[in-house]
């Protein structure tokens, strides 16, 4: 709001005629968006330019539209028709681009339009358009997951596509919409394998990942015999198990491995990783090795790539250590590596350590620079893990760690202590001197964890250091009150253990420590002290447990297992985000285990033998298939100023109306039915309606244009004049005048005004006594047949007369027009008057905003038409209807199933409700199960065909065919509502 003055200036620029100004404005707006500033208030001003001729302006408008359509759904609909036109363009690029933008507009109301557009594009001749269709599928799915079934059909169709352009995109759509439908892949498996090498890089990644999962469900584990043997070795009762049949690899499994292997040479790290994981998960053990070299290559890439690759190598190196051993040096740590890389390299080196290379690795560890504290800790832990895993070097490691105990850096010492503690647990007898050495450290080392570890060690192995242990306890007792909590707990433990083994020397000390602990601030320590005192100090009250105190405290504790955090991480598909996080990410597809028995391999057989995949890189030597197109999408407008389609249906409407006149019998037929449906009680209303009509006539009488009311006498001369002055859609109406039998049918098409819904335009209170209502009179608006006639009824309930009622300052969306009603000079108090005004809504449901003025006040009002009022009835024969319907198939057809509301079952009710909801006329039909209606939009004259087929139990199917998909969509919604409520 604070920045609105600046935006005003932008709006002005957008409204100007100069493209350069518009462009400048759009550039500034897009720059605002790029910076993250809110530019949504400019939406109406921007969207007007959607059909701008200048390509760049147009392009930027699209950029804007895609960004803000979600927030301004109603306004966004204005632009839809531009894209709909684009969808039918002869140029494939324009079709594709239109689909891309249309599907990016995240507005729920256009879901059916998108669905139709995608379906159509999926069978487009151009592979590029089909690719765009594949891209649009996940967009629609995220907008409306209920479309899933329909989308799967499209995916199935596109999966069968044989071009490389489409393959990656459709598999992407498959993965997002229906990854569980693995059955859709069968028939396309071989084709995908063969196309793979020529698919663009990003598509390759997606396809390879998907095929990995597929293979895991369809083939047998190539390593099953070896894995089994390993297991058998572990279990000793191997005798009874029946040997499996020798393993034979499915040729399709081999095909996949063979066709992915060259991609290890891709420049794209993601592709290489995808192939690597495929080999890791699917290849026989002997063949997995090939990926190591490629992965090591990635280690020389950007540090982020290294980070991800190392994570995966860390997991792989646990299971397949031999694979990376030749590349040990590539994992050497550099001082310039970021910390997370160093830590991961350390992890890999630790996994790779064995008897032969351990000395080199340990030297690497020592060479590492101790600047980075996190890394130091990781290194020392790594040394510890090497020591536990490789018996031969345990002493070397231990010695190295003991040397580190004299390091100046306390953190190094502390970490070493913790690791040594774990190592000593494995063979404490041989290392009493190390324990002694560590006991000395308690004087210096301050890190609580390290102190606690030393105390635990001394307590645990107090029998190996009988002289030193009591002395350590003595020192600790002195400093007890100043220690950290974990240290205090260990002091208590030490005291208890010494009391049990050497009570002579330590009895008093223990008592002292326990007394100190009794009054400690920390309740854990108080509890521990109380519990231990009860357990170890024999009293008459002490329970049965105290007998076992020694066994409890000095039981042999199992040595800790130092394990890699990457162990068993390969149950996640490698290379995935979930693997990296070691947690399942949203949308992750579990990598299934190998099946026990292979499913039927014949499902992948394709009847028609596929031609050897054409190597597209060679085929490019041939001529380009697509001719250079002649009309770019971004510059397609040919003199159209807005979303309106001006008078492009002249011929159509002419012929329609001509044929409509022949079909007079049908009109009277339906008239009968309509009359039947109206009960006698409605007669009063009809009379009222007539009154209103008279009022209208009064107003209209002032106009120079000849009257064309339904009840006026046919006047040939007048109608000829009318024919000359009025444009063609009115021609239809002229039929009534020229053709004697026709006037009879008029009441049928034009619903008596009693049935018209009135809307409030101005309330009595806000209007200071003047109340205004309007309704859509459904009469042709004679001054301009492209306008919708709106009947406005003024009632002056004030005490004084209202003067000079007129319309002013209409603020309209681009393309919209208003024909004001003539000024009403005086409206006396208590009187009511009706006038008619015309509004060209441009076939959109956008509101027309204007000011209603009296001599004293101005009121802002707006009229928003229901979609059903944007059309006018036309007459058609059954055959014509069918013919026209046949031409409006595909995306122009919207079908919906519904259940008729109870009161609405029966033909008459249906007809009445449909004609109330929309200004349509009935088309005769042979079957009483089907009702048909026809009309055309007022502005552009696009045909609107509606049919309702009723079935048993109130089930019905509603079909709307309309060139204007937005209109069609909204109409379906309205009629659906009318029929079900």
């Amino acid at each position, binding site marked *: 709001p604070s920045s609105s003055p600046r935006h005003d200036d932008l709006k002005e620029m957008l409204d100007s005629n100069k493209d*350069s100004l518009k*462009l400048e404005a759009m550039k500034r707006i*897009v*720059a605002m*968006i*790029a*910076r*993250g500033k809110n530019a949504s208030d400019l939406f109406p001003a921007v969207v007007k330019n959607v059909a701008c001729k200048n*390509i*760049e302006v147009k*392009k*930027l408008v699209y950029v804007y539209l895609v960004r803000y359509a*979600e927030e301004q759904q109603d306004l966004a609909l204005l632009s839809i028709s531009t894209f709909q036109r684009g969808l039918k363009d002869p140029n*494939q*690029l324009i079709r594709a681009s239109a689909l891309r933008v249309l599907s990016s507009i995240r507005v729920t109301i256009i879901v059916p339009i998108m669905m139709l557009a995608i379906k159509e594009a999926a069978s487009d001749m*151009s592979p*590029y358009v089909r690719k765009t269709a594949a*891209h649009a599928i*996940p967009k629609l799915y995220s907008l409306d997951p209920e479309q899933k079934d329909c989308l799967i059909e499209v995916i199935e169709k596109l999966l069968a596509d044989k071009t490389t*352009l489409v393959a990656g995109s459709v598999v*992407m759509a498959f993965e997002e919409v229906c990854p569980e439908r693995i059955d859709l892949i069968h028939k396309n498996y071989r084709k995908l394998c063969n196309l793979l*090498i020529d698919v*663009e*890089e*990003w598509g390759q990644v997606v396809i390879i*990942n998907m095929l990995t999962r597929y293979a895991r469900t369809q083939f047998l584990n190539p390593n099953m015999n070896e894995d089994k043997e390993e297991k058998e070795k572990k279990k000793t009762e191997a005798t009874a198990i029946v040997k499996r049949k020798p393993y034979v690899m499915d040729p399709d499994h081999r095909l996949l491995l063979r066709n992915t292997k060259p991609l290890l*040479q891709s*420049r794209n790290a*993601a592709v290489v990783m995808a192939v690597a994981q495929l080999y890791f998960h699917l290849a026989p053990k002997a063949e997995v090795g090939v990926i190591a070299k*490629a992965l090591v*290559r990635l280690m*020389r890439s*950007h540090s*982020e*790539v290294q980070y*991800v690759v190392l994570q995966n190598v860390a997991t792989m190196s646990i299971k397949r250590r031999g694979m990376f051993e030749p590349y040990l*040096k590539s994992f*050497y740590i*550099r001082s310039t590596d*970021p*910390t*997370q890389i160093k830590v991961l390299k350390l992890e890999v080196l630790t996994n790779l350590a064995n008897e032969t290379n351990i000395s080199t690795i340990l*030297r690497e560890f020592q060479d590492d*620079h*101790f600047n980075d504290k996190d890394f130091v800790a990781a290194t020392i832990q790594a040394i510890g893990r090497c020591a536990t895993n490789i018996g031969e070097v345990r002493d070397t490691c231990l010695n190295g760690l003991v040397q580190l105990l004299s*390091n*100046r850096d306390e953190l190094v010492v502390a970490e070493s202590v913790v690791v040594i503690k774990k190592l000593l647990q494995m063979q404490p007898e041989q290392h009493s001197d190390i324990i002694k050495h560590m006991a000395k450290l308690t004087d210096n080392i301050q890190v609580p964890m390290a102190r606690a570890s030393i105390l635990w060690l001394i307590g645990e192995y107090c029998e190996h250091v009988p002289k030193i242990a009591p002395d350590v306890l003595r020192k600790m007792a002195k400093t007890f009150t100043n220690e950290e909590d974990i240290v205090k707990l260990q002091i208590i433990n030490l005291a208890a253990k010494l009391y049990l083994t050497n009570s002579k020397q330590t009895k008093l000390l223990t008592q002292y420590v326990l007394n100190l602990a009794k009054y400690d601030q920390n309740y854990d320590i108080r509890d521990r002290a109380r519990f231990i005192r009860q357990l170890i100090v024999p009293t008459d009250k002490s329970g049965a447990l105290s007998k076992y105190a020694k066994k409890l405290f000095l039981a042999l504790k199992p040595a800790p297992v130092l394990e890699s955090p990457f162990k068993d991480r390969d149950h996640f598909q490698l*290379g*995935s*985000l979930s693997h*990296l996080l070691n947690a399942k*990410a*949203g*949308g992750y*597809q579990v990598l299934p285990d190998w099946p026990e028995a292979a499913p039927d391999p014949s499902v992948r057989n394709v009847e028609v033998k596929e031609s050897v995949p054409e190597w597209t*890189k060679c*085929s*490019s030597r041939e001529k*380009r298939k697509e001719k250079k*197109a002649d009309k770019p999408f971004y510059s397609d407008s040919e003199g159209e100023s807005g979303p309106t389609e001006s008078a492009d249906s002249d011929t159509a409407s002419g012929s329609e109306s001509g044929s409509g006149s022949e079909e007079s019998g049908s009109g009277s037929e339906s008239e009968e039915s309509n009359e039947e449906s109206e009960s006698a009680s409605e007669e009063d209303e009809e009379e009222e309606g007539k009154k209103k009509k008279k009022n209208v006539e009064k107003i209209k009488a002032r106009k120079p244009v000849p009257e064309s009311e339904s009840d006026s006498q046919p006047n040939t001369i007048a109608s000829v004049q009318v024919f000359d002055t009025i444009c063609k859609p009115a021609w239809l109406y002229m039929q009534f005048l020229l053709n004697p039998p026709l006037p009879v049918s008029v009441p049928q098409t034009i619903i008596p005004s009693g049935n018209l819904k009135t809307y409030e335009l101005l309330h009595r209170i806000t209007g200071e006594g003047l109340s205004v209502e309007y309704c859509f009179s459904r009469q042709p608006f004679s001054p301009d047949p492209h306008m919708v006639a709106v009947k406005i009824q003024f009632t002056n309930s004030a005490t004084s007369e209202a003067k000079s009622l007129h319309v002013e300052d209409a603020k309209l969306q681009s393309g919209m027009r208003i024909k004001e009603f003539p000024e009403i000079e005086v409206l006396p108090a208590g009187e009511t008057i009706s006038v008619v005004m015309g509004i060209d809504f441009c076939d959109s449901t956008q509101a027309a905003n204007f000011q209603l003025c009296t001599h004293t006040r101005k009121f802002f009002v707006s009229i928003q038409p229901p979609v059903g009022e944007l059309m006018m009835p036309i007459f058609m024969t059954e055959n014509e209807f069918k013919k026209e319907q046949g031409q409006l198939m595909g995306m122009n057809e919207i079908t919906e199933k519904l259940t008729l509301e109870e009161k609405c079952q029966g033909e008459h009710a249906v007809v009445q409700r449909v004609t109330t909801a929309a200004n349509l006329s009935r088309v005769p039909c042979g079957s009483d199960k089907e009702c048909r209606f026809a009309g055309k939009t007022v502005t552009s004259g696009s045909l609107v065909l509606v049919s309702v087929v009723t079935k048993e139990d109130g089930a019905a199917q509603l079909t709307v065919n309309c060139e204007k998909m937005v209109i069609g969509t909204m109409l379906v919604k309205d009629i659906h509502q009318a029929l079900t409520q």
Partner: protein
Amino acid sequence: MINSLFLINPSGEIFLEKHWKSVVSRSVCDYFLEAKEKALEPEDVPPVIHTPHHYLISIYRDKLFFLSVIQTEVPPLFVIEFLHRVAEMIQDYFGECSETVVKDHMVMVYELLEEMLDNGFPLATESNVLKEMIRPPTILRSVVNTLTGTSNVGDTLLTGQLSTIPWRRAGVRYTNNEAYFDVVEEIDAILDQSGRSSTDLSTGTTVQRSWKSDPEVKGQASGVCVCVCVVCKLCYDWLTGTTVFAEIQGVVEACVKLSGMPDLTLSFMNPRLLDDVSFHPCVRYKLWESERVLSFIPPDGNFTLMTYHVNAQNLVAIPVYVKQSISFFECGSDGRLDVTVGPKQTMGKTVEGVMVTVHLPKTILSINLTATQGSYTYDNGTKLLVWDIGKLNPQKLPNLRGSLSLQAGAPKPEENPSLNIDLKIQQLAISGLKVNRLDMFGEKYKPFKGVKYITKAGKFQVRT
């Protein structure tokens, strides 16, 4: 897949955002900024961050953070690779990738991003295709644009996306048809301190073993030669320290400006030298596998044709040796530094652009050094010592020596700093790789062809 992209400068300011799906509030970056605060160096920020509702995958490149927001499972490398492509695209379009450049061309960058992804899935990432849609700015064009009010958006129809060879635009025309290839090699090496006797021997033996076991070498060189080499190497090792690790990274950069749809075949004299290769998608993998030739229809303009790797450590010639000693006296607060650089295996070429970089310990107070050649700079804040030597003269070896003084009372640094070496050798591919010939099919004209070799130091480190 990729939901949004944020560009963030080192001080944490978000200066560009782009969303390919529903808008994600930029407050999601707070998690990242928090991690960035914790990290000592920008490189230390974890590339993948898990937040309650999103995953943040970021790269740090050209002093900028490219942060992408992900909502569902996606291979992390897929995202990282794409982010690097974005950076490369900016570099390609505007000559450099920096905050200023992006801010100057905000709208164009935004439009490019719009084209690169559709609903978060890559649509057009090939430079050739992008350039057809959105023309890169040139000085001339920006002048013309200002005068005429025209724009950079391509006004012809973009056929690049339709092609089965997505990396090459159609209808390329040049008056001078030329194709240049630069073979650039970088040596990555870690050299150990000299005189570490315990390991010298063992490395020596491994060297011997690997020389003999390498059939390639056996086939080419006589046994005597092998022996001599081993001895030489041992001498060098004894003199100048052992090579802990050495390998060569090579890359063939191409600049191809050829009309029409040329189909090129490039062959090497000694392709078996290459240990590992990766290719631009235009290269036909299968032909490389069977015949060891590079067969491809090139993209138009500059591109990286292939990268390769020469691993066998003994084959890696180390062009310079470094004799250095950095020592601190046990008592007192002084130390000495003495570094000499000399040529080693240079194949008769001059070593240029030699530069030695040392991260001195944090406790150094000041230094006082003299260089016999070139000049040195020292930043007391970062403790970074840079000695720019220039051309290496084998007659008079450059030397840098002098004293270091430690902060009073500071303990003697535990570890000695390692030296990073930078160098350049023109007209030499240190691995010995040579291009044999380049043939063109598919077009009738005679192109002008050229190959250039250059060797540089990559991560070349001397441990002390």
